[in-house]
């Protein structure tokens, strides 16, 4: 059984399905809450073990492919289901299994105030998400990938709207669902068009077709662009990034799992899986790169002005997704994928750390925090590790992957996006350390937090903030140590890359990050630069960023003017022209029927009269017309 036939990956996948089905079908278990959660966590741990073992089998480059026939069509098989475990998908599988497992453990404590039935519901959704995400990662064909793609979208919707009684959460869930759905339509069109061109959904067969040159290149640009649209929706690329910050209405562990580490990276993963197609369409790749770089910059600027700690992290995720997309656009999908993996680790860490802070302070807002490093030293340390990883400091997780992306973009000859990404690296370090200095150092907000606590009243139990309990601390430390381990490992052993980065790149990247950190330190820690005057120096940009560059308003305007206007016109046509014609016809029928029925007098004499007159007319007609 321990041969590389992919059964381990299959076990990892099916364990989550088992967890989901158990909780979904056995309703009493789900309503008990905690016992249901333990079932789900047991499945997650087993799944993690299987995923790690599977990764060990496949990391050397072995490929296991197991497919079963699913939809027969005219004696052939139209569609298959199965798994495709190779180096990329198994390492991604590990990331999903790891973060899913840690998040489930973390949620035990984070959501302990929830009533038991909704606690069980949460774990049901979590298992469904993990299963769908793994199905997506392991999908051997685009059809299965699309099905799982929609399933993760559904789980994301359910989990964002977990507190569905809160109107803002319900709205955010619907917004996320619809915006990603807009991209999914593109993806579906792309997959069907590709099927018409290649005659198969299967990724392996498609790769063979491409390598033998049998796939016609004409019209491929439209297909890859459609696929990119799906990826852009899921991975929150401009202008479809607006759903991700709102998705922060969900519980923080959900944000860590779905909206930082796994689901939002599905778009990047899709592009990695279909890299061989995109390589044939350099024009689309150029769009990918420029949109990615623009998204990275836009989101980084937006992150600088947010006061909600989760929103800073959300925009930071959008920005980092832009980074990955740019690397893919430069033609080096592996660099983007590498950053996806390290980013998954440290962004999950940052979100879970932020969750610990929110749990302790009972607020998302940075002004309510401050000076927390003394009260929650463990959280401060792990958050700092995550922040340094995100900033790309040597010895920390994101260092090499970020540098690889910059190197890839430079090697791809995209000077414009490269410059943008360097600026973004500076901004990233700045806004992340702004969070660190405002939340963990500086003046404790205790004085006015106290007043706040009274103002809130309802919370009542505003105890002194303290480090989280073990169930929350353990995942934090595991992720922090893994981020460190990855960082240290890759700082000393550079993996072989497909491109050669120039020698000045690493010092430049690190220098930019350090400059960003120093600026944040000088502004928010030492107050050498007055934050207010710094803000006013960037007045118009700041003003625009606070209003999210009016992108939400533009969408709203498009909805109000174009869509509503169009529907109003259609409604008018339907009401007055389509319905009008029918109403007139039916009214005519009614009145003419009413008139005609008076002919039917019921008196036999009238009928005789009619017959006689009719006969007479016929005779006359025969006499004069026919003769």
């Amino acid at each position: 059984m321990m041969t590389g036939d992919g059964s381990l990956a299959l076990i990892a996948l099916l364990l989550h399905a088992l967890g989901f089905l158990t909780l979904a079908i056995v309703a009493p278990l789900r309503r008990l809450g905690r016992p249901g959660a333990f079932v789900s966590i047991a499945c997650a741990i087993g799944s993690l073990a299987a995923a790690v073992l599977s990764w060990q089998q496949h990391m050397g480059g072995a490929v296991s492919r197991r497919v079963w026939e699913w939809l027969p069509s005219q004696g052939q098989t139209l569609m298959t289901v199965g798994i495709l475990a190779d180096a990329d998908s198994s390492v991604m599988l590990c990331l999903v299994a790891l973060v899913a497992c840690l998040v489930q453990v973390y949620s035990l404590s984070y959501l302990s105030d929830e009533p038991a039935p909704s606690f069980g519901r949460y774990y049901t959704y979590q298992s469904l998400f993990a299963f769908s995400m793994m199905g997506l990662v392991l999908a051997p064909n685009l059809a299965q990938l699309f099905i799982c793609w929609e399933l993760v979208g559904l789980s994301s919707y359910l989990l964002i709207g977990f507190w569905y009684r809160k109107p803002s959460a319900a709205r955010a869930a619907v917004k996320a669902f619809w915006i990603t759905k807009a991209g999914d339509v593109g993806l579906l069109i792309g997959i069907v068009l590709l099927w018409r061109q290649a005659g198969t959904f299967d990724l392996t067969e498609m790769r063979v077709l491409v390598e033998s040159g049998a796939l016609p290149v004409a019209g491929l640009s439209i297909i890859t662009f459609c696929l990119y649209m799906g990826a852009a929706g899921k991975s929150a690329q401009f202008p479809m990034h607006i759903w991700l910050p709102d998705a922060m209405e969900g519980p923080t562990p959900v944000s860590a799992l779905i909206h930082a580490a796994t689901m939002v990276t599905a778009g990047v993963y899709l592009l990695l899986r279909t890299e061989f197609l995109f390589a044939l369409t350099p024009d689309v790749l150029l769009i990918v790169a420029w949109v990615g770089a623009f998204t990275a910059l836009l989101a980084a600027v937006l992150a600088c002005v947010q006061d909600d700690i989760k929103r800073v992290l959300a925009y930071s995720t959008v920005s980092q997704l832009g980074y990955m997309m740019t690397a893919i656009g430069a033609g080096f999908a592996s660099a983007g994928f590498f950053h996806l993996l390290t980013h998954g680790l440290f962004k999950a860490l940052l979100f879970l750390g932020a969750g610990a802070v929110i749990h302790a302070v009972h607020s998302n807002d940075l002004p309510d925090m401050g000076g927390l490093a003394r009260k929650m030293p463990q959280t401060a340390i792990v958050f700092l590790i995550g922040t340094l990883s995100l900033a790309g400091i040597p010895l920390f997780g994101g260092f090499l992957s970020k540098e690889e992306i910059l190197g890839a973009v430079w090697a791809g000859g995209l000077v414009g996006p490269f410059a943008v990404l360097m600026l973004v690296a500076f901004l990233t370090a700045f806004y992340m350390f702004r969070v660190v200095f405002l939340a963990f150092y500086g003046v404790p907000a205790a004085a006015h937090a106290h007043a706040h606590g009274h103002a809130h009243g309802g919370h009542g139990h505003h105890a002194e903030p303290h480090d989280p309990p073990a169930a929350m601390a353990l995942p934090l430390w595991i992720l922090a140590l893994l981020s460190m381990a990855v960082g240290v490992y890759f700082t000393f052993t550079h993996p072989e890359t497909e491109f050669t980065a120039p020698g000045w790149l690493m010092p430049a990247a690190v220098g930019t990050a350090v400059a960003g950190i120093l600026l944040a330190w000088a502004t928010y820690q030492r107050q050498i630069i007055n934050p207010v005057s710094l803000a006013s120096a960037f007045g118009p940009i700041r003003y625009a960023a606070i209003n999210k560059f009016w992108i939400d308003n533009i969408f709203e305007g498009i909805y109000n003017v174009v869509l509503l206007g169009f529907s109003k016109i259609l409604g008018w046509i339907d009401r007055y022209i389509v319905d009008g014609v029918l109403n007139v016809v039916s009214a005519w029928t009614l009145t003419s029927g009413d008139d005609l029925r008076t002919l039917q007098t019921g008196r036999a004499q009238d009928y005789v009269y009619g017959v006689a007159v009719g006969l007479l007319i016929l005779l006359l007609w025969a006499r004069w017309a026919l003769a």
Partner: protein
Amino acid sequence: MGLQAYLTLAAVVFGIGLFGVVTRRNTISILLGIELMLNSVNINLVAFSRFSGDVTGMIFTVFTICITVVEAALGLSIVILLFRVRRTVTADHLDLLKG
């Protein structure tokens, strides 16, 4: 007198009969009108038989007269039944088939 005179007579009697059927209010008068129309046909049959020298028309007329008698009996009994049920024999009131 030629054939034409008989035919004209038959047509006039038929017209009177039809007029009676269409205009009379009383059901019995309508029956009388029907009798008139049947008899005009008899005149036609007899006239044609006489002028063509073929007796078939005469024989047919005898049949018609028999049937007319039967028809009159049937019609009258229907009228009597109708009177028992509806208490009227005025045709204008017998409009159950009105649409």
